[in-house]
Structure formats: C-alpha cells, structure tokens
C-alpha cells in the first residue's frame, strides 16, 4: 500500500499582530496550519511568553513563585526592570490587581500613573490587564489606554459586561485588545463580532476563551481553543482568526498542587518541582491547543516552555 502524506490545506489563516515599539516590538500569529504542523503550512511567528507582574506585592501568590520576586515586587517599575534585565522577558503583562474594590480599590488615575512609570522605565512590549472586576475595569482600562497612548500595548480584558468603553479607548489610543469570554466558543465568537461591529479592526484583537489550570478544567479550555482554531482555519471564519491568549499563571498558582507542602501530601513529592511542572504543563498544553500568547509567572516554568517552543518550531 502506498503511503501518501495526509496533508490538510486550509483556506483560513490566523491573523498576525504586533505590539510594542521599535526594535523590541514582537509579532504573534500568522500561521495557516494547526499548531506547529510545518509540514503542511506556514508558522511564521513563535508563540510568545509574557512575564506577569502586578501593581502591588503578590501576597496571594504561593511561596514558590512569590519568593522569586520578593526583592523586586514591592514596586512595579523595579519588578518590570528585573523581568527585562534578569529574565530577558520578551513581553511583560502588568495586572492592575490593586484597583479591585476588594484588593485596595486604587483609582484609575493611580493605575494610569503606574503605567506611565513602567513604560518610561522599561521598553519591553507591555500587556495591561485590569483586575477582572467588570465595572472597575471599565474605568481603569480607559485611563490605562490613555496613559499608554503611543506605546502600541495590548490591553484587556474586554468582556461582555464592559467591552464598549474599553473598545472605544483601545480604538482611540491605538492599542491591541483582549476579548475574554467564558469557555464557550459561541460566546467567544459573539464577543468578537460585537467588538468588530464597533469599528474595531479584527486584526487588532486577541481572543481569550478563558484559561484553566491542569486538573481544574484544563480539558475545557483545551477543547474550546482547538475548536476556535479549526473554525478559523478549516471554516475560514474570520471572527475566529485572531491569535489566542492563554492566561496561565493566575489559574495555576492557586490550585492545591502548587500550594500544598510536602509533609501535607507526601505522595505528591517536591513542591518546588511540582508547582513549576504544573505551570509548565498547563502552558505546553495550551500551546498544543492553539495559544499564540501565554502569560506566566515562574521563571523556571517560562524557561521550560521556551525550550519546548524551540523544539516545536
């Protein structure tokens, strides 16, 4: 029996997008094949890993990852500098946690100042994330978009309940935008449609179908991402062609496997390796499902994932 290479050729293509400025700017997306299948298509850009920082000390992060940043995390500018200089981060994701009403309720103006300071000090492409409070994010991200005007950032996340103001701000200040929905391909599609109907260019969108950690719903995220990719490539559905985000760190660094000490769970082995493996494997799985942009926390996990991407490209 003669073997014929079973190639698929797709009409659709993942949109490509760049962010950041000057020679530090980076591009993601652009492939016209399922993840890493270079034998049948083009994979022009490697997936990008952004290093996550916060506008306040990460008190709620487990020790394994909190301790890595203990000398720099008191101040976001120092923290961002550390990511650039020591970790050689290709992008940084700044989460404005302290604007959340339950986490300090800092004002939108405060947030804008933080962003200006970080942007002035560190030239790495920046992702600006709200605190995931629907109403507050609408204020904070508008101010943030203004503060970052001209820096070609990614801002997010726009959700069903607040996308209008955030989209308008991203449009006005020429940023890229993350649209997040909750683990449902139809919701993801619908939100992208609503956003583009406001005149926002689909080439500037990133879809976040919502991440989940290994052992805690990972399979849902994995399958929703695969379905989005197939819809974009095989069915050539333009609303399903933006690059995909996997916001890995925040879903991983709270589950018991990244927190429980060795004496508490002797059957689970080393906490350090266990938690780093947890973030690594969650991220690797997301890459296989179609993620173009990852947000991660632990440098060792980022290192493993970068090495895995080297092998996959």
């Amino acid at each position, binding site marked *: 029996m003669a073997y014929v290479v*079973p190639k698929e050729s797709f009409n659709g293509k993942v949109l490509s997008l760049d962010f950041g400025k000057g020679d530090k700017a980076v591009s993601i997306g652009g492939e016209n094949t399922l993840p890493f299948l270079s034998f049948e298509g083009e994979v022009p850009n490697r997936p990008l890993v952004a290093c996550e920082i916060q506008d306040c000390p990460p008190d709620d992060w487990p020790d394994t990852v909190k301790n890595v940043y203990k000398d720099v995390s008191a101040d976001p500018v120092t923290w961002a500098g550390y990511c650039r200089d020591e970790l050689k981060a290709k992008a940084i994701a700044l989460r404005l946690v302290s604007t959340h009403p339950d986490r300090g309720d800092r004002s939108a103006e405060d947030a804008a100042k933080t962003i200006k300071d970080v942007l002035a000090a560190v030239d790495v492409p920046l992702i600006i994330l709200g605190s995931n409070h629907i109403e507050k994010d609408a204020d904070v991200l508008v101010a943030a978009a203004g503060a970052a005007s001209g820096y070609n950032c990614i801002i997010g996340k726009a959700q069903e309940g607040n996308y209008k103001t955030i989209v308008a701000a991203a449009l006005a200040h020429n940023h890229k935008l993350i649209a997040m929905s909750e683990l449902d391909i139809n919701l993801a599609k619908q939100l992208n449609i609503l956003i583009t109907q406001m005149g926002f260019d689909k080439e500037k969108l990133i879809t976040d179908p919502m991440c989940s950690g290994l052992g805690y719903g*990972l399979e849902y995220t994995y399958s929703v991402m695969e379905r989005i990719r197939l819809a974009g490539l095989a069915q050539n559905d333009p609303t399903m062609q933006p690059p995909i985000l996997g916001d890995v760190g925040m879903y991983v660094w709270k589950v018991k496997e990244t927190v429980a000490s060795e004496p508490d769970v002797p059957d*689970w082995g080393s906490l350090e*390796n*266990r938690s780093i493996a947890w973030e690594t494997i969650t991220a690797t799985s997301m890459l296989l499902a179609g993620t173009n942009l990852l947000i991660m926390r632990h440098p060792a996990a980022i290192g493993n*994932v970068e090495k895995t991407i080297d092998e996959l490209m």
Partner: protein
Amino acid sequence: MALTGVQIFKLLPKTNCKKCGFPTCLAFAMKLAQGGVELSACPDVSEEAKQTLGEASAPPIRAFTLGTGEKAVKIGGETVLFRHEKKFVNPCALAVNIKDDLGEEEIADIAAEVANSEIDRVGQKLRIDAISIEYASGDSAKYEAVVKLAAEKAPEAAIILNCKDAAAVEAAVKAIAGRKPLIYCATDATAGEMANIAKANSVPLAACADGPEALSALTEKIKALGVEDIVLDSGAKTAKEIIEDNTRIRRSALKKNFKPLGYPVINFVLRDDPVYEASIASVAIAKYASIVILSSIEKWKNLALFTLRQNLYTDPQVPMQVEQKVYDIGEASADSPLMITTNFSLTYFIVSGEIENSKVPSRLAVMDCEGLSVLTAWAAGKFTASKIAQFIKESGVESRVSNKELILPGQVAILSGSLEDKLEGWKVTVGPREANAIPTFLKGRAA
C-alpha cells in the same frame, strides 16, 4: 481499503430482522462503514461475509493489551483526532526506562517505585503502567537477569524489552513469557528474526523506522510474517517530530483508513531535566502517543502527567460524576455537621478530601447537578435554593441529624436566605469559599 455502506450491505443477510439494533440491514451497513459498530452485532452474518468484511470492519487503529493481569492496559483503538469530537478511548501507558547496566539495587528500587506509583485522583487509580528495560550492557545473560529482576519487583507492570539484539530479546522474552512483554523493536534489518520471536511467543512487537513512510513498509512486512499486535515508532525524538509524525500517523489511519499505520504509537521523550521532560511528555500525551517512555518517575512528575492524561481522556460530553447521596465521612453521628455540594467528581473529591483532613466526622450531601461544579451548576440553574431544598427533603437526611443545620459552599452564599425560607425549621450556614479552608472551619466549630 474501506468498503462503502452499500458494498457492505450486499454482504449482509438482507432480512431486516433488527437483531443488531438497527431498523434495517442497510442502516446497520451504513453505521458499520463509519466504524460506529462492530460486525459481530449481526448474529446472522455469513462466514464468507465475515472474511471479506473482517479487514474492512476492523477498527482503523488496532487495539490490544499491554501486559497481563488486572493492571494490564489497553492501548490503541482511537477513533478521532480531536477530543471534542468524541472521547479519546484508551489513555496512553506511561513507562520508565531503565538501563540494564545500572546496579542491581538501583534497578530493584526503580522497579519498586513503579510498583508503588499508584495515586488516587478524582476517584481514579492512576499509575506508571510499564517498565522499559534497555539493553545497554551488551551482555545478554545480564540483560535476562535484569529483566527478571525488574519483572519480579514490579509484578503488575507491563514490560517493554528495549533491545535491538534478537538473541538477547529471545532469551528475555522466554524468561518472562507469562508477562507478555512488548518487544522494542524490529528494524528493517531485523524484521524477520524479531517477527518470528514475537509470533512464537505471542507477544506484541514494536516497529522502528525513519518516518511514517518507511514505517508503513516495515509494518506490512511484519504483518505478513504473522504478527498482528504492532506498535509504531517513527523515530520521532524532538517535540516537533513527535507532533508532526504522530499527526501524520493518526490521520493516515483515521482519514485514509491506511492499515499499515493503524497501530498504537510509542514515543521516547527522554531528557536530562525532569521538569523539561514532563513538558515534552505532555506533547506526546496530548498528541496521540499510546505509550510514552520517560527517563524518571518522580512523584510530582507522575502526579502532573497522570492529571494531564486524565484531563484529556475524559468524555467531553459527560463530566465525571459521583452518585447523588448523603455520604458519611469518618464516623459520622447525628451530631455531625452536614454540608452540601454538587456531584461533579472533582468537586466531590476535593471537598471530601478536605473534610477527611479536618478529622471531624461529617456528612456530605452530594446533589445531582449533571456533573457541574458549584458555581457552574448555580449559573446553570441546577443548584438553586428550591432544588437544594427539595433534594434535602427527599434525601431523608432530616431523620438522621439531631441539629437541622446545613452548611453551604461559600461560593453560593447568595442562596442562604432563600434556602432558609424554603427549608422550614433548618438553619443555613455559609461555609468557606475554598475547600482548603474547610479543616480550619470545621475544627473551629468543633472547638
């Protein structure tokens, strides 16, 4: 090649007797053509039809068992490329590779680690399924002794004889024939000898060639020599080779019904750094390997890889569920606290685990919410005050508690008022939001 529904129909009895569960022979034939049923479902099919259809109706990827006994694992038999289409069928076997030139003690230790690797996660018992013993010493007597030792120390694990030397393999196979080891591997040069050994001892054989095309020629050769249970190694080593070759192989088998590649795949992911190795192992697990060979099996790594395998091999349509009922945890009595949660397996096992940790005997009422987590069930209208009230009333738990108090998950604190209205005579208490706060919460109450 695959037959069409109409071609199959011509070979059936055409009596429309319905014994197969289909209204007509044609309907059955159509389903058979898609691989959705087995020919044996028709009791009246002729011998001749069986012969003709045998090949065509065989599953596109052959399934067989690795090892023997209760913990033997079934591999292969997959039917789809993406898990949202249909459940991935047989979770891949995870194995550790041991070189035969390590010290005896070290080999015995690793084998014992395999034997003790079982962990319970979300109600499933998960373990390292196999040991691969690599012929590194060049001394066949030593190899045989090490194979015997490992087999004895891990009495339930499947054994993979990682050895390209036919004479050494033959001796080792004979030494543990009862364990049905997998021979790894035959190459183009050794296909004849290896196939004869596999056939004579009724054990599966791995075929190893450079890339899918050469591999397909090799499996045809091996099959012609009478070996049915074949495992594929395309020589993939890097993550890219793994994802590309495994995709080509799975697509050939499923979409082209290309029999020479219709077998389970084995991948070696050996790396020096164990966390990094876990990352590459994830590529193999997600992308179609049926056997993944690791160089080390630390507890943390096993837990992570078992969890990934479990996640990807769950049924995408039906979340894992536990039975609706009131569970006693510890020596529960009429005075013990009563808590409620949903029947999503993950939720149940996390919550019951934390209640156990608290050492406070308790009752946990588990309500059928079609396998959804607490918040998801609440958002979907399945974990509402009236449904909870009805469940508690019908469960009969009222007669078993002295103190009518129900503890709610903190995530649905919002339900407490309306639940109190609906459950007359009951007090509703809001528990912590996260299960890991349950021990402190329960101990605080007991004090």
